[in-house]
């Protein structure tokens, strides 16, 4: 139970971090990483920052999201979490994913 409380506390702390907007450089880097790790049919510069990554946009599915999460966690030293309603939001667009990375990265 103590462990669970600790986690809730950690999550609250994380959610309280002020959001840092991502730079165009980081967006380019992450777009390149998406294309490479998912073997996508598009080039990095075809991924516009605000187009949806799920569904009708880039068409990522849950397998892709898990794959991207692994790559992102290693590259930027962060762990993605799906608690809270912001999981769908994180993968809403390249920009929101990059903002999340900019806010939570340790590397």
């Amino acid at each position: 139970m103590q462990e669970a409380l600790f986690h809730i506390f950690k999550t609250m702390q994380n959610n309280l971090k002020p959001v840092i907007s991502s730079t165009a450089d980081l967006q380019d880097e992450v777009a390149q990483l998406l294309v490479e790790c998912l073997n996508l049919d598009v080039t990095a510069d075809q991924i516009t920052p605000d187009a949806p990554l799920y569904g009708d946009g880039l068409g990522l599915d849950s397998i892709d999201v898990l794959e991207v999460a692994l790559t992102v966690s290693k590259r930027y030293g962060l762990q993605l979490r799906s608690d809270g309603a912001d999981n769908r939001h994180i993968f809403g667009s390249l920009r929101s994913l990059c903002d999340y990375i900019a806010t939570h990265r340790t590397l």
Partner: protein
Amino acid sequence: MLPLILHQSPEDIVAWRADGAVTRQQFLFEVDQLAAQLPTGEHLLNMCRDRYRFSVGLAAAMVSGKVSLLPSAHTPEMLRQIRGLAPDVFCLTDNELCAQDLPQVQYPAMGACPASALAVPQIKAAQRIAVVFTSGSTGIPQPHPKTWGALVSSVQAEIARLGVERDCTLIGTVPPQHMYGFETTILMAWLSGCALSHAQPFYPADICCALEAVPAPRVLVSSPLHLRALIASGLVLPDIKQVVSATAPLPLKLAQDIESGFHAPLFEIYGSTETGQIAARRPAHGPAWQLFPGIKLTVDGECARAHGAHIGEPVALSDQIEPLTDEHFLLHGRMADLVNIAGKRHSLASLDHLLGSIPGVVDGAFYMPDETGHITRLAACVVAPRMTPSTLLSALREHIDPVFLPRPLLFVDALPRNSTGKLPRSALQALFQSHE
């Protein structure tokens, strides 16, 4: 008549949710409360994300004589077809964003339970409690009804084989709406008298947190997709007593990494939507699968059929099977028509049929590249002069789970059909290789 759950006393823990333990008494009270609020329709689409709420929804349906429908995907087309098969269907949801075009029941807030002990409901063995669906080779979903008696029999065999005891807690990464998660995260908890975790963790850090939130001994019920991510994350996990995997066989190296990384025995379950689970193996002890008691395999040429125990009529399996003894066999991959992507199965013939039926598609075919050890994606080539990739993908998305969407999707002038109009796999392979 068979009891709904095998928890012996009203204080026994049935589940762990965010606010702590749920006793048998509280669970049965909530089942009664929900059952009283369900509409008159006999068919329920249980979309609850929370595993505990799913279990309350399932139990409430069972005690009211309703059937839970468990389709393999929730695409708009699948829901249209479900409504065609069961016009009275309604959706139980615990998610405010649930946008299904069906009558909806929102999972209610529950009160505190009364002091006097509630009796465990008894369910008729012949009662149809669930219908699961497969894609079928024509694209029309094939219903497979499951009776309570058959499910109890197969899950009891699983409990005996895995040695799951009543002090355990089951933590699942697979949804309870699919046959494996349904049997192994819900029914296995009910019928072994152990507890289930309400969580539906996705990312490695979520799995870690869901494990930490419940007391040991813990049984992790997962799939190759999640286990691979969990190992690759390098996260330090709390003690796990046992790991269970299904949906696709684990590569031996990954199986070994899981046993050594988690310091826990790993068991794999083999089964199908049609048969439920029928065999298990411990990959560390060898590649052979051992059938559950009473299940028999008959192999005739390429086709293996399972029968006996909880399976009624013999059921054809969609994998290539080599029997070793009466109760042991080896798996040699899928039949050519079946694709399995991260545990989701679909008939290749039905995908081709679907592609050809989309207005604007002149000709088209899906292609499953040779597997490379990691998750392999379907590809497709089409002749569709007046369509764009995005309009074609949107049309496909209406009908199939996103994991089956082709990547790449090639637009060509003609498919490499031979003089008899057939499309040899080797010709498709050459076509895709030339586009790499």
